[in-house]
Each structure stands twice: as C-alpha cells, then as structure tokens.
C-alpha cells in the first residue's frame, strides 16, 4: 500500500555514517511507514547544496548545520530549522600534539587548515583572543576539500572544521598524534552541529508531515540509544551493498555522538532558543552574517 504513503525526500549533510543511524533504523523498522511516510534519502555534492534544494522545495528536508541556517537566512534563503539532530558541536580544534599546542594561545605562529568555510577564521579568532592571544600571528591556510591529509602530511599544525567523531578518529587510527580542543569551552558559543532544515513554503504546507517525520525519527533514535550495536548494524548492512564502512570507527563515532543527540534537559530534536540567539549574536559580531538575523524566524520546534 505504498501508494497511500507520502513521499518525503531528505538530503543528508554528507555520505551515510554513524550519525544517520536513526534514519536508517526508523526506515528499516517501518516507523516512517507507520506515519504514512515513504522516505527517500539523497546525498549531496557540496555541503551547501542541501539548504538550497530545501529552499526551492526540490527536497523536503535537509540535514545541515545550524550556522549555515543562519547564514542562509542572512542571504535571504528561506529555510527554517525544524529540529536539532546533534545538539552540540562536533567541530573542534584538532591539532598535532607534537607541535607543542596545549591551549588556544599556542596557535600563534602555527598554521591552521580549514576547508574554505567562512566560519573557520572567526572561530579561531574567537578561540585565540579568548585565551588572550594575537590572531594576527596565526596563519590560516585554506586547504580545500581535504582536511586530513593536510594535517597528516604536516602541511598544517591544526585543523578547524574537522569532526571529533570522524577526522579525529581516522587520523588517530592512522597513527597521527592528534589532540582535540573543544570550541564551546573556549569562547565560541554552543551550537547544534546538525539540524533538520526545510523550506519556508514546505513548512507551511507540510507541517503535519514534517511533524510525523520527527516523531518517527525520534522513535528510531530511541532504538539507537537502547541498542547502538544493532542500530549500527542496520546502517552497515544498508551500506554494505555498495560500500563497506569501517565498523570500528563508526562504533566509536556513535559512542561520541549519542550523548550529544538529546539528554534530559533537551530531549532529542528539541531546539534551544538561547542557543540560537547566542549563535546569531556571535555570527553578527564576527561579521560572518552581514546583517543581524532574526533568530526566532530561523527555527521552529514541532510538537510530537
């Protein structure tokens, strides 16, 4: 009876990995179907594509970054976040321990690699200045697509934009002497790494469906929490057809992720207006957004 189901297309932030377990579990177990949803999962070419596609309604949902949502709104791209997926940053300062970095100030005279992102420089600036350092002494290097080789080959001393649950793990696995430093402990406001984004129009017309989506997904996330091992297997099995994921890395990744995906104070999916406000203020202060974004328009918590 697929005919009665409503097609919902979601575009991932990146290729499937541990963070997407809930999606695959919910799909596998039929939670979406139960809600009358036939979920289609797509993968993006570029990290900026999902937002645009959601804005034009080409897709119903996108997994994107909270910062990107605010940036989009400042560029008049009509997207709204309807739920938080990873409620805290995965992004951290990943550095080469053997380069004598112990605190942000130590970045002075060092090279920091980043991936053409407009937020990287302000983040490092905030970090360094919060520690009383001088940003002008830090050399920022745009390393294009490839963060990991840049650090691994010693072309840079630290990375901004690398994830604690992915790049950090992989670099460690390859024997690079890496350390990580949290951003939110060093002056950068807390933010949701991943959020669910939809277009304003879609939100208006499909609010119901979207709510159901969140509901089904929350169920999936519950299962993941209860039994991470089997959840991961669902993902690995699904991907196995075409592509083998590294089970060890993904397991570790999921361990890091789970505490960040909803706790007692903020349940899974819930968005904290305070977090939005602080982030929007910081982005304006650091000139990432050319104008002050009305953070209240940028998100909406659905009731499910």
């Amino acid at each position: 009876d697929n005919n009665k189901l409503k097609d919902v297309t979601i575009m991932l932030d990146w290729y499937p990995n541990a963070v997407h377990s809930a999606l695959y579990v919910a799909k596998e177990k039929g939670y979406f179907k139960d809600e009358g949803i036939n979920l289609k999962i797509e993968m993006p070419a570029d990290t900026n594509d999902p937002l645009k596609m959601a804005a034009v309604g080409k897709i119903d949902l996108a997994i994107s970054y909270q910062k990107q949502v605010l940036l989009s709104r400042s560029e008049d791209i009509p997207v709204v976040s309807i739920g938080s997926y990873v409620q805290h940053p995965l992004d951290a300062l990943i550095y080469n321990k053997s380069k004598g970095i112990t605190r942000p100030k130590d970045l002075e005279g060092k090279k920091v690699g980043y991936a053409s992102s407009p937020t990287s420089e302000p983040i490092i600036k905030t970090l360094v200045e919060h520690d009383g350092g001088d940003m002008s002494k830090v050399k920022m290097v745009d390393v294009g697509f490839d963060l990991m080789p840049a650090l691994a080959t010693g072309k840079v001393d630290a990375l901004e934009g690398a994830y604690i649950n992915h790049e950090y793990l992989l670099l460690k696995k390859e024997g690079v002497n890496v350390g990580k430093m949290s951003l939110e402990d060093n002056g950068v406001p807390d933010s949701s790494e991943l959020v669910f984004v939809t277009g304003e129009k879609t939100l208006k017309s499909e609010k119901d469906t979207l709510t159901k989506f969140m509901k089904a997904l929350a169920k999936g996330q519950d299962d993941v929490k209860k039994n991470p091992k089997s959840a991961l297997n669902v993902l690995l099995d699904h991907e196995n057809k075409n592509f083998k994921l590294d089970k060890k890395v993904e397991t570790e990744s999921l361990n890091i992720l789970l505490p960040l995906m909803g706790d007692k104070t903020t349940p899974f999916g819930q968005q904290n207006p305070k977090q939005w406000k602080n982030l929007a203020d910081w982005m304006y202060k650091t000139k990432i957004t050319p104008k002050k974004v009305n953070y209240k328009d940028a998100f909406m918590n659905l009731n499910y």
Partner: protein
Amino acid sequence: MMKIKSFIRLYGLFAIFTVIFLIAMEAVVEAGFVPSYIIPAPSEVYRAIIDNLSSLIFVHLKVTMLELGIGFILSVVIGVILAVAMFFSKTIEKIIYPIVLISQTIPIIALSPIFVLWFGYTIWSKVAVTFLIAFFPIVVGCYDGLRSGNSEYVDLLRSMGATKWQIFTKFHVSSALPVFFSSLKLAIVYALIGATIGEWLGASEGLGYYSRRMSGQLNAAGVFAAITILSIAGIILFIIMSLIEKRLLRNRRS
C-alpha cells in the same frame, strides 16, 4: 590467436614497466617513505580490489559505464551537430562558439545546484556532466577538421554543381575524419572523467562515488582500487577508439 600475440608484443613493454613500477612502489611504501594513507602499497590496493571485486565491477563500474555510454553518445551526436551547424553558418558559429567556450570555463561544482535542480539525483545529472565535459573536444575537433579540407577538392565538387551539403558529405566528412578521431579519443577519456565527477554531485553507485567515499574514510587503498579500475577502463576505451580510427582511416595515405 594472432591478435593476442600482437597485443602482447605491443603492450608487453608497458606491462614490464608497470610491474617494475609496482614493485618499486611497494618497496617505497613498505620502507615508510610515503605514508600508506596517502599512497597505498600496490599489494594493499590489489587486496582492496580483490575483496570488493564483484561490487566494483558489477555495481560501480557498470553504473559508471552506463553514464559514460549515454553521455558520450550524446556528446558525439550533439557535438557533431553543433560543429556541422557552425561549419555551415558563420552566424551560428558566432553565437554558438562563445557559448561552448563559456560552458567549459564554468567550474562544474558551481553548476551542481543547477544540475540537481534540473535533473534531480537521477542518472541524468551524471550524464549531463559527462556530456558537458566530453562534447567540447568533439565540437572543436569536428569543426576544425571540417574547415581543414583542401580547397581544390571543394572546387572540383563545386564545378560539378554539388550543393553545399553534397560537398560536405562527399568531401568534408571524409577529410575531417583524422582530426575528428583525434578528438573522439580525447572525448572518450573525458567522458570517463565526466561520469566520475558527475557522481560526486550526488550518487549512490559508481566508481566516482566509490572513490569519494573511500577518500572520505581516509582509505587510500580503496581510492586507488577504484582508480585502478577507472584507469583500465579508460585505456580499454581509448584502445577501442584507436582501433575504430585505424579501421576507418585505412585507405587514407595518398
């Protein structure tokens, strides 16, 4: 039998060279001069291929070849039509040629949202990229080939009262073949790159997709497994094109 023998004779040298190169690489990586997450040891790549052979060949290569096939055929058909139109009409040339050039100077990645918007995540977005990359050498080669014909022969045909179209079919088509084939050989290789890049714009199968995923995992052996298969496919396609060229240009030397 003859064919196989001559093939071995022809490419034996390359094979020997390759083997020496691979052994050297193995030694270099083994000795730790190059980290294996950047350039993997050939033995690792070999294992990565063998372990995933059936999925590499029957899933990923198959899909990439399909994209390449459709894209290449479209490139040839549309590329030739454009070149011929430009050959017949200066007006069309003046309008088309700049557009063709512009199409090449736009970085594909900048087009990705547009392609996705138009074609979604179907095979057509990959075909579009393949086409975009492969049709350029065909247009330029075909057009230059058509223009390069010796005018004495054209005069002879004109004196017979041949129409423009007849001069085109009886003379220019044949005289353009050498340059045209030169460009077809480029185009088939570019079509392969095109299909690979196209897969980066969103795909769930194909060798380009595979290599990108592996690269995201810092799995160099996996990346090179895909590259190895791509390279072999590229060489085979090129050889096929060259054989067709040889065949059709057999009676050329005057």
